[in-house]
């Protein structure tokens, strides 16, 4: 079998977002809307809760499979503690949003080497997984990126352990201003 890597540019955004202008002596971008030029770190206090051990069977998509496992346990926030498995093909993305570029790695038998990421609820409360990691093909080439929703069918098995994150209830996340 020859493993082929196809790198396809994803569709480009209609208009590139204008980058904020750099300010002399200050950070070139801002996350703190109230204080332009400063970076704010969002702090969410909480604790870790239950763990969930799962096996995802063949031909189920990695990202949606992880979300369905969380939903079945009523978990909306979680982090990946470990994952080992294989994929029919891998679809990895780099870049953000509409400018994300796809790396397609053809198997079957793509090994998932490492995987990290978290599950957070969308506006309707449904768990949404963002998972990133590394894979290898049959020639031991290693690729990395974000596992693209709907593009990573499990080959033989995926073993995954997730741990629930229980954020404290608070009116709004703290902003930690940068000194």
């Amino acid at each position, binding site marked *: *079998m020859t493993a082929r890597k196809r790198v396809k540019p*994803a569709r480009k955004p209609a208009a590139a977002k204008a980058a904020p202008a750099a300010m002399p002596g200050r950070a070139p971008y801002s996350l703190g809307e109230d204080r332009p030029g400063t970076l704010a770190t969002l702090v969410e206090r909480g604790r*870790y809760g*239950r*763990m*969930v*051990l*799962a*096996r*995802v*069977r*063949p*031909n*189920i*998509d990695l990202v949606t*499979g992880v979300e*369905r*496992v969380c939903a*079945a*346990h009523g978990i909306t926030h979680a982090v990946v*503690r*470990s*994952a*080992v498995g*294989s994929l*029919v*093909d891998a*679809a990895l*993305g780099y870049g953000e949003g*509409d400018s*994300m570029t*796809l790396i397609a790695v053809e*198997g*079957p*038998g*793509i*090994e*998932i*080497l*490492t*995987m990290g990421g978290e599950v957070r609820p969308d506006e309707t409360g449904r768990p949404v997984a963002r998972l990133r990691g*590394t*894979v*290898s*093909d*049959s*020639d*031991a080439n*290693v690729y990395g990126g974000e596992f*693209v*929703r*709907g*593009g990573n*069918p499990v*080959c*033989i*098995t995926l*073993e995954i*352990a997730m*741990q629930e994150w229980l954020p404290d209830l608070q009116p709004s996340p703290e902003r930690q201003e940068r000194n």
Partner: protein
Amino acid sequence: MGERRLRTVKQPGRPARPRLLSVAAGNGGELRLTLPEGADLLDGLAEALSRAGARSAAVALVGGCFSRMQYLTGQPCDDGSRVATYGAPTPLEGPVALLSGSAFLGLDQNGQPIVHCHAVLLDNRGKVHGGHLPPGVCRVGAGGMVVHAVAFSGAALEVRYDAETNYPVFHPAALAAAEAAQ
């Protein structure tokens, strides 16, 4: 980026249900281990975690070095017995760095501890490799190998034969209270 069309493959056995198997587990303790130079990674990890009281655990391989090691990569299986199989092992002479890795401790079909491990590696010429690390052939080198693990309470990973894929693989299992207390 929108949804991609999922390419699926026909497995040798009938699709088993449910497609997603999962159990809730408690935190049975967090561990940091340093396997010593000369230890076999998988056998040493299985033994050390068992002796530390873990029956099943999620393991993050943080980093370290091998004096010599082998790894395997997946490839299509042409005889129809399975969708994918392992190719011939790739041996690497040390020092080989482990950059990052993932593993699980569970129980094999005889109830003995067994580790399933995949890792990203850096060879002694600076080339990155990655694959499945088998037992008995990955010798920890100078400086040891650091791992973090979280043990599960009330649940385990158990190797069972899976007729759908024609492989023995880990399955999550809830443990009865008496069994979990062991």
